[in-house]
């Protein structure tokens, strides 16, 4: 490629010649200043200079490409499409990188009509929608799937439905789906699912007993045990029993250190005014947005050396994500937490938190709403948070303390 200069210069967009240079330069400076996200030109000097490191794939890149190629040749091969989508979904979960969810959806694009999609394909689609926070679509697609003959035995689909409904704050409907998990033959998951809902509603003692009974089974896989311990820790945290929560979080992390538990424990530690420990818990986690947000908040509170870098990076990521307007909705919770803890902008945090609870109603979403309402001093907002909590029937002493 002879025509390419060895050194690239990236000039900003520049309508033509010298006559108009000065005026345009002024306009461009203005235009440049309004570009939210940071960007800097790269000027490689050698051919072997590495410009970008691609995210690792679960298998080798060649294998990855071969799968994609085979799918391109046979896009309506349902088994192949589901396998490809499943791989990308795993990668999205492991890395916290939503681009993989997009790739996974693309693998399923031969079946735009859910009514005609094979069950595997439909289940993956609903799971991806859940990952992308499109909860209504996810529920709708799971219901179509679960209405099919034979789906009675699909424990995983019922469990996913129960989870999405819980995230939306629809506890009663979630209970029903938890029951179906049991009818599908996954008894442990059914009982844990019901206990989780019971704990959210404040049936704390019964829920605690259920979790403890499940944990008494010595044959449990470590990851399952860890999951149950995390649920128990969150129950104790909401019920205001810090010591019990701390012990359960630690036990869960010892068994299986997953990012979700690390983040939940970090939030707990930050709330307990132990930010330095929160930083330690997160130090080996991949720097997903959710992890980085906690690093920034804990770093700020602990006055850690890393705080400036983490805060600046989080701010940049938010700015970049917000170039797509819907990001404000998708990342409403995280952006509200950042606005509140780092920027000290209660009014903005409240706006974001309100947008967030419109679609997502986990305890943390309501907690952030309550914190923003309290910080902004708005009686209406406090009343709004109280109402929403009452409507859901959520039991959470952390929120009670704020309202």
């Amino acid at each position, binding site marked *: 490629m002879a025509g390419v200069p060895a050194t690239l210069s990236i000039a900003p967009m520049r309508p033509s010649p010298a006559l108009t240079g000065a005026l345009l330069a002024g306009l461009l400076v203005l235009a440049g200043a309004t570009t939210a996200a*940071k960007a800097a030109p790269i000027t490689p000097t050698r*051919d072997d200079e590495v*410009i970008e490191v691609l995210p690792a794939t679960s298998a080798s890149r*060649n294998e990855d490409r071969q799968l994609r190629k085979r799918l391109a040749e046979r896009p309506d091969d349902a088994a192949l499409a589901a396998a490809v989508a499943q791989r990308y979904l795993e990668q999205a979960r492991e890395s916290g990188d939503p681009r993989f969810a997009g790739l996974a959806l693309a693998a399923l694009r031969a079946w735009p009509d859910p009514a005609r999609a094979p069950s595997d394909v439909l289940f993956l689609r609903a799971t991806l929608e859940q990952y992308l926070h499109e909860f209504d679509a996810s529920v709708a697609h799971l219901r179509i799937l679960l209405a099919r003959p034979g789906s009675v035995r699909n424990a995983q689909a019922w*469990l996913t439905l129960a989870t999405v409904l819980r995230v939306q704050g629809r506890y009663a409907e979630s209970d029903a789906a938890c029951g179906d998990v049991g009818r599908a033959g996954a008894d442990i998951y059914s009982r844990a699912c019901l206990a989780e809902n019971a704990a959210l509603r404040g049936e704390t003692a019964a829920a605690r007993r259920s979790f403890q009974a499940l944990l008494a089974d010595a044959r449990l*896989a470590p990851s399952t045990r860890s999951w149950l311990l995390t649920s128990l820790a969150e129950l104790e945290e909401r019920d205001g029993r810090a010591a019990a929560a701390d012990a359960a979080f630690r036990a869960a992390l010892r068994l299986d250190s997953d990012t979700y538990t690390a983040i939940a424990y970090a939030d707990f530690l930050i709330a307990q005014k132990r930010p330095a420990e929160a930083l330690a818990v997160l130090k080996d986690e*991949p720097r997903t*947005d959710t992890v980085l947000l906690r690093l920034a908040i804990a770093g700020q509170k602990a006055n850690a050396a890393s705080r400036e870098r983490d805060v600046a990076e989080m701010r940049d990521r938010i700015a970049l994500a917000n170039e797509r307007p819907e990001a404000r909705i998708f990342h409403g919770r995280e952006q509200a937490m950042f606005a509140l803890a780092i920027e000290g902008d209660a009014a903005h945090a409240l706006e974001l938190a309100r947008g967030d609870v419109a679609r997502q109603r*986990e305890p943390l979403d309501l907690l952030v709403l309550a914190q923003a309402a309290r910080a902004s001093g708005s009686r209406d907002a406090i009343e709004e948070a109280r109402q929403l909590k009452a409507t859901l029937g959520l039991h959470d002493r952390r929120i009670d303390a704020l309202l």
Partner: protein
Amino acid sequence: MRCSESVGVLAKAARVALGLVFLLVAGVASAHKASDSYLQIAAAPGRLEVRWDIALRDLDVALDLDSDADDKLTWGEVRAAWPRIETYAMQRLTIEGCPLTATGRGLERRNDGAYAVLQLASSCTLPATPRITYGLFAEVDPTHRGIAKVQRPGQAMVLSVLEPTAARPGAAAAVSGAGVGAETAANGAALPGRGASRWEFFGEGVRHIVTGYDHVLFLLCLLLPSVLRRTPVARQPVARLSQAVWPVAGIVTAFTVAHSITLGLAALKIVSLTPAFIEPAIAVTIVLAALDNVVPFFPVRRVVVAFFFGLIHGFGFASVLAELNLPRADFVWALLQFNLGIEAGQLVIVAVVTTVLFALRRWPAYARVVIGGGSTVAIVIGTLWFIERTANVSILPF
């Protein structure tokens, strides 16, 4: 984010129980936003420049840039792939009425990775509501979006989010005001049905003359002296309206016939002139017509001037028409509508202006203030337009 990650935990546990395979991967990814490309579109009269930033990691999925599959993109690999990148991307972006050519290339580091920068340009005037067809990564990632910022001189930046639509004829995202309009079947596609939009190009014609300030200003210049008669000593107000109406009718008819001729010739692709010539030439017609009001120098009657200059304005209408993408099937019908729309709009303007001027004609300062002052303003505006259109700068806010 509990909801996604909790599902991870839950699903992980469920997989163990249900016997599904669980792949553990150490994720070292740094990017945690969805895939976006960034389009900065700068529109000036007769010139469009597009800077398009596309993430290399997204391009790798579509084009396998990493030729040695070592998970590292070197400058050599990117450089070698650049023609494929350009071809792939440019096939997936069309801005109606603005055929794009690549004018430059570069690389940019954003906080979610390295981006290829494509610089594209077109010598066209971006329509008020441009239709942008965007299909980048449609087959690779349906959650991908193009973030377009359209900047016109002297106007606020307009942001739109372009959703990739798989390449199929007629699919286009309309870029307008606050964001992406609904996907529209091309305007023309609705026309053969002769339904509600049967007269849609009539409306476009009206809109174009009413908001086409240059054509209106030119007409005004021709009309300013029409309520005065030239006598051997001085200009005298006409006595009756009919004395003004006939010269006005003559001028307007000549202008109309002339621009209809060139509009037709250009629309039927029999004659074509570049907007780079026509747009400044229209500005010149305004300056000359205004100058003649102050110091008469046209060697022929104004009817003849209106005719010749009307030929130039017709080409100006034609470039708008090209952007409207008239339906092939009903081309003549659409063209007729557009022209009738122009004439109708023009008639209304002429009627209003003539009435006002007629009412003012006996004012002693009419010649000095209305003709002299009005023409001077027209000369200044016309001159500035000429500069804008030849030098590609923006001076006037309209």
